[in-house]
């Protein structure tokens, strides 16, 4: 379902609801389930996002950082999902994150200017990737970069959180939740009750 437009998924969902509802005597109650859609309607995304917590330079660095963590290489990435906006909003809402993010971004700038004489944002793409690789992978560990690694972990966590809770991200994930069934979904592997002969998952 990854490639489907959201409109079609929404339509399918509402159709499934209606079909299920028509079978039940308590139809009125099912209207509540549908009501969620109206009540929780998406706010339209403003053309220009005004950061709540970060200053413009920090925000631009953060946007670049999330983009490097989840690039838009052939499929939607952090940019398309508006991850930096989510991170900014969450950091603004959570005082316990504010110092860690601000310090981390400053660390990244200082580190970049030590290595390349420029702020992280102004470094070349290769230089940026080079810096992050040492923070991201265990086998590229360099002494003295512990603070940066801690920050990178945090930024990566929030990037993934923001991406996979967005509309775009959930489509990428082919999220199996939020399905409705007319009767309880049983195990489909009737011939193999011990599940010994199923192909191993890829991950």
């Amino acid at each position, binding site marked *: 379902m990854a490639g489907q437009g959201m409109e079609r998924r929404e339509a399918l969902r509402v159709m499934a609801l209606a079909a299920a509802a028509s079978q*039940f005597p308590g139809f009125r109650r099912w209207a509540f*389930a549908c009501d969620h859609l109206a009540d929780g309607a998406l706010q339209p995304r403003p053309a220009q996002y005004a950061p709540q917590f970060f200053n413009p330079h920090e925000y631009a660095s953060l946007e670049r950082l999330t983009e490097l963590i989840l690039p838009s290489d052939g499929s939607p990435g952090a940019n398309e999902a508006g991850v930096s906006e989510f991170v900014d909003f*969450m950091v603004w*809402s959570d005082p316990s*994150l504010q110092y860690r993010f601000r310090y981390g971004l400053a660390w990244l700038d200082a580190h970049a200017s030590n290595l390349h004489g420029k702020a992280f944002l102004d470094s070349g793409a290769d230089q940026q990737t080079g810096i992050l690789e040492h923070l991201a992978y265990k086998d590229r560990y360099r002494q003295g970069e512990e603070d940066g690694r801690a920050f990178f972990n945090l930024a990566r966590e929030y990037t993934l959180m923001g991406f996979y809770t967005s*509309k775009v991200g959930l489509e990428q994930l082919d999220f199996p939740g*939020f399905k409705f069934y*007319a*009767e309880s979904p049983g195990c489909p592997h009737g011939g193999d009750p011990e*599940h010994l002969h199923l192909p191993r998952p890829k991950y």
Partner: protein
Amino acid sequence: MPKTVYDVIVIGTGAGGGMAIKTLCEAGLKVCALNSGRRINPARDFRNHRMPYEMKYRGFGDPRKRAQSYGYMDNEYVGEGIWEHGITYTTAPGTEWMWPRCHAVGGKTNFWGRSSARFGDIDFRAATLDGYDVDWPMTYEEIAPYYSRVEKMIGVASTVQNRPSNPDGEYLPPMKLRCLDHILQRGAEKVGAPYLPDRIAQLTRSHNDHPACHFCGNCTDGCDTGSFFSTPWFLLPLAEKTGNLELRTNAVVRSILVDEKGRAKGRRLYRPRHAAGGGNLRTRRGGGGILRGIGKDHAEFEVALLAGGDRQLQWPARAQPLRPLVWGHRTRVPAAASGSAELPRQRFRQHHRVDAALAESEKSSRGEVHSRLLDLPGGRMR
């Protein structure tokens, strides 16, 4: 402030209160139900069919309030003001124990685990079998018809399993085993343990005009279709249909007025504190009576049980500070300040026959039901 006299006042609308309300209303008694919180609006408050991006914090909840959250039931998928925070209880030093209280109408029946097994004969005769404590004052055979009655009312899904320790009831079709269940079942077979469907109060097909479960899997965030038993979906509509129920929300009961002998004082039922300009009530902040009321949006009530006879109350006559709530203290009802703390066994037996008495008296007069009720010891089910 005009006084209204009710036959019965029920404090709380959870599993016990809700069932009492429904049963008493259907028996023709005028019932006033007091609930500490508001009513739930399923469309707004149960958000379990929303996608994360339809919520402000993507379902993670307001970070500034996360510290006081009770966890998975008390999250962004459930509306504000459903769970009670800032409860005045303490825990023993070095212990972390949470007492999540849902103060919306229906209490934790809105979020419960739905497991609805019967006690078996070995539970009722446990003392005879293992030598500890005392037997229950009734047998399984005596109580089985009432189990059936409730199961038929609320809808419980399971299978016939022929295990006397966990007797079979009247069940809806069970849920199917899923992959993990099959794997575990095979493993359990190898060690000789049964792996069977639970008795679960979840509607696998539509039942008593309640729609069947749609298996979305978010039961602990509340059910917006009313497909598992909860007071607001199953009992209140029936009680309200009788026209005998007056449900007062945001009404925290602070104390029950009793005289020095521990008896209900008389006919004054309640007095809203703010409306009456304080009256003889004092605010207790950080302390607590038997039940306490705090909060600017809560009217506080004093409640006197309407008791014409010489009924002994099992509540303490005077307000007591809440005890530290470490495990084991929770289920202990404060000892009666006056009167006997222990119930005579005969009366306890009688207590459990209230259902039968009410069923019989559905045709009979109100006074009779009332007098039967007043015969019963209250408040002490432990």
